[in-house]
């Protein structure tokens, strides 16, 4: 078996490592939802300027964030309870936990992609609007 320092076994260290990685992901995804709500606000203002109705609500970003955060917390809880009996238990649980962690990061990257596409579409609309107004 591996010779680890007495006070740090995988069992004691793992919750903190998981906490660190999940914490990082939570902060990043929270920031993405902040960006999302800023885009929604800009979209609404632009639609006011161009007299087009906008159906989006900024509550939507909050819902996305809550959903993703719940999934993330569920993963953390899973690793805690399933693997918490022994070092070997954690080593067994780890692959599944890492795959789940990669999955939630995929969700967040997808969210970023979605944000980016909407933003650039909005930017394009803005450019064409300013051209129309400029020519009036």
């Amino acid at each position, binding site marked *: 078996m591996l010779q680890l320092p007495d006070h740090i076994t995988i069992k004691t260290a793992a919750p903190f490592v998981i906490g660190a990685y999940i914490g990082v992901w939570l902060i990043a995804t929270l920031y993405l939802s902040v960006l999302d709500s800023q885009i929604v606000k800009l979209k609404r203002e632009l639609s006011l300027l161009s007299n087009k109705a906008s159906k989006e609500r900024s509550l939507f970003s909050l819902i996305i964030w809550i959903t993703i955060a719940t999934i993330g917390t569920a993963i953390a809880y899973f690793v805690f309870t399933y693997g918490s009996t022994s070092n070997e238990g954690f080593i067994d649980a780890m692959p599944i936990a890492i795959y789940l962690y990669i999955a939630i990061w*995929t969700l967040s990257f997808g969210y970023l992609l979605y944000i980016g596409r909407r933003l650039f579409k909005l930017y394009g609309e803005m450019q064409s609007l300013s051209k129309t107004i400029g020519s009036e």
Partner: protein
Amino acid sequence: MSLKIGGFYFYLVTAFLLTVAGLIGTFFLTPLEVKQIGFSQKIFYFHVPMAATSAVAFGVTLLGSIAYLMKDSKNLYRKAIRLTKATAIATVIAFALRITFNVMGIEVLGGIDVRLILLIASISLITLVPVFWFFAFLTRENMDTWASVGAEIGLLFGSMLLVMGILWTRVTWTVWWTWDPRLTSYLLVMLLYSGYFVLRSSVDSAHQRARYSAALGIVSYIAVIFTMISTRVLRSAHPVIFTLSDPGVESSMLITFIVAMFAMIALFGAMIIVKVTINNLREQIEDMKDQLGG
């Protein structure tokens, strides 16, 4: 503009692929560190890249501030001459003092490996500067926007870094926080850049705000540099891994580390493009509202 969109997608895809690769590498492909800190060493692979990325972000603030002041000022030539003279005099004094101390037998600032600092500085410049100038100057955008967004995302990566750091400290040293030089100076960097935003909110005129933030952004980077070299200059319990003589980690660890480093920088690239576009869009909408309303 399409250059930026292309850049965004490039950074996004790269960040995603490298993050997944980095995570797989961290948890499956690297050996468990058995000498000192065991499983918690896995935090290292993303902790240090985040620190580097926040330094890059604050570096964007520095470059944006310099670029703004360069575009903004008249008589820049005279000021640059004066600054060069002052720096030259200061360097001469510093060297004279160093020689005097050496002659007197007092050891001067031993323990700083200047070559390492130069290596890090050159690597950061080589990676950071072309990226920045490529996007910023090519689009001839407002440098002040880039500077403030750099600070914002620097704070974001900084908070992620602090979360990882606090939990790592708890595992290895069983306390949540120590007043170690690097931790303290990084906390100060975070407070300083938060103060940057307090300054921005207390000035009304856009031009004045940009000028003042630029001046503060340049001076604040001194604090960032101090954080980077603090573990080597002052006594610190923070682990010092990389030295010039010995990489300090095995090759599989080093490769995973580098992959994670590029992953974080790519993520930073994607985020900064998004946020700068949001800020620019907001400005344009405000302008248009003024134009239509007035």
